[in-house]
């Protein structure tokens, strides 16, 4: 009888899909993920030894695991919760927008994207900055469009608050987690007064100054929000503010000092 070798070759089988993640888990090389509540609903949060590596809307676990493997070249397996040192800070970020001090695993990020995310991570809750501001902050003025792309590809939305970076004209722009509309939901949850802001930007106002301190700010900066209405000056550009004798705020840095 011939054909026996061919039939033996047909006995070759693909390993079951859970076996590779299982092997990497056994040797301690798999990443892990847990499901956590967030302002936008349940999310998958994946983490490595170095920090949070991925945040995505919770859906089909197998789909998330496959996409993770494809994107990072590493297996990810379910865990009950993030490690204790991460759990509390992650939950504060997801539930309340308090995003400071969460370690993010930079593996797979370009230097540019890592710089963009570091800059966005420094924007306080309830405040927003334009794409061009991030570009200038990271020493790449004029790269606002690339900043937009980097933020749209943010692997860890909510944890790195890319939703706080918006278009100069006051429109919110793209968002990396679900619908673009989610950006508005998050900023409102953080206390941003969206209607008041839109009233300013629709009139072309981009900066607010205090006639008392002679300092001007991005309108959402905590210092700008404290300016009494009678002492408030409105500017369309840093040049206009400078000509009026105002200097830029050191916290929200509307222009290089």
């Amino acid at each position, binding site marked *: 009888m011939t054909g026996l070798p061919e039939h033996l070759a047909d*006995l070759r089988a693909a390993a079951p899909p859970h076996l590779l993640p299982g092997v990497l888990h056994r040797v301690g090389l798999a990443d892990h993920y847990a499901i956590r509540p967030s302002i936008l609903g349940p999310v998958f949060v994946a983490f490595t030894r170095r920090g949070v590596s991925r945040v995505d809307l919770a859906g089909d676990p197998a789909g998330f695991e496959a996409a993770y493997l494809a994107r990072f070249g590493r297996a990810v397996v379910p865990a009950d919760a993030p490690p204790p040192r991460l759990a509390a800070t992650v939950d504060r970020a997801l539930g309340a927008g308090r995003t400071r001090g969460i370690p993010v695993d930079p593996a797979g990020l370009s230097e540019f994207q890592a710089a963009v995310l570091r800059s966005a991570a420094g924007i306080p809750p309830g405040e927003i900055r334009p794409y061009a501001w991030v570009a200038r902050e990271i020493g790449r003025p004029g790269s606002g469009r690339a900043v937009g792309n980097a933020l749209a590809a943010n692997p860890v939305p909510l944890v790195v608050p890319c939703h706080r970076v918006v278009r100069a004209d006051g429109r919110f722009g793209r968002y990396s987690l679900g619908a673009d509309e989610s950006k508005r939901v998050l900023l409102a949850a953080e206390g941003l007064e969206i209607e008041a802001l839109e009233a300013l930007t629709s009139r072309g106002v981009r900066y607010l100054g205090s006639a008392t301190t002679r300092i001007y700010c991005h309108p959402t900066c905590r210092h700008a929000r404290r300016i009494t209405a009678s002492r408030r000056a409105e500017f369309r550009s840093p040049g206009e503010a400078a000509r009026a004798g105002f200097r830029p705020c050191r916290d929200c840095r509307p222009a290089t000092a």
Partner: protein
Amino acid sequence: MRPRGGIEALPAALAADRDAAFPLLVRALIDGVYSGALRLLGNSADAEEVTQEAFLRAYRALGRYPAARVGELRLREWVWTIAANLCRNRARDRRRRGEETLDPEAALPDPAPGPEARALASAGSGALAAHLARLPWPQRAAVVLRHVTGLPHAEIAAALGRPVGTVKSDVHRGLQQLRRQLEEEEG
């Protein structure tokens, strides 16, 4: 970051950064190791455990070896040295305990239609895997590694610690024995 290219580039990558390259090693070899273990042991539960254990041992060994040695490894035959040994021990333990190891999943998948397939099917080839399990260990190992996992004779010889000539004759005699078993069933 992630080294590109096939398994040829892996020894150097493993020597440079074990943790970065090890997942690539597992991806490159896991289907072959699992398939071989499945046909050597006759059931998927044992095959999965052996596969996990083999890669775990490989990972630990890579941590003990000096980088120069890792860089020179012939990875497939090396992993199979570990896996074949685990398979042999497990098969022996099962036999000693008198356990039946074949499960339905391990049986032949739907054969491609054709005269060969029909001949094998009429000979009861749903149990080709079962016939494999009846071969004496050296022949079974040689046949499975040669024809199921597709290893060259030299790599099989290294993995099983037997001379190449012996491996070739084990493959040959194993196939003969399988044919005899299939014919007996047919007759």
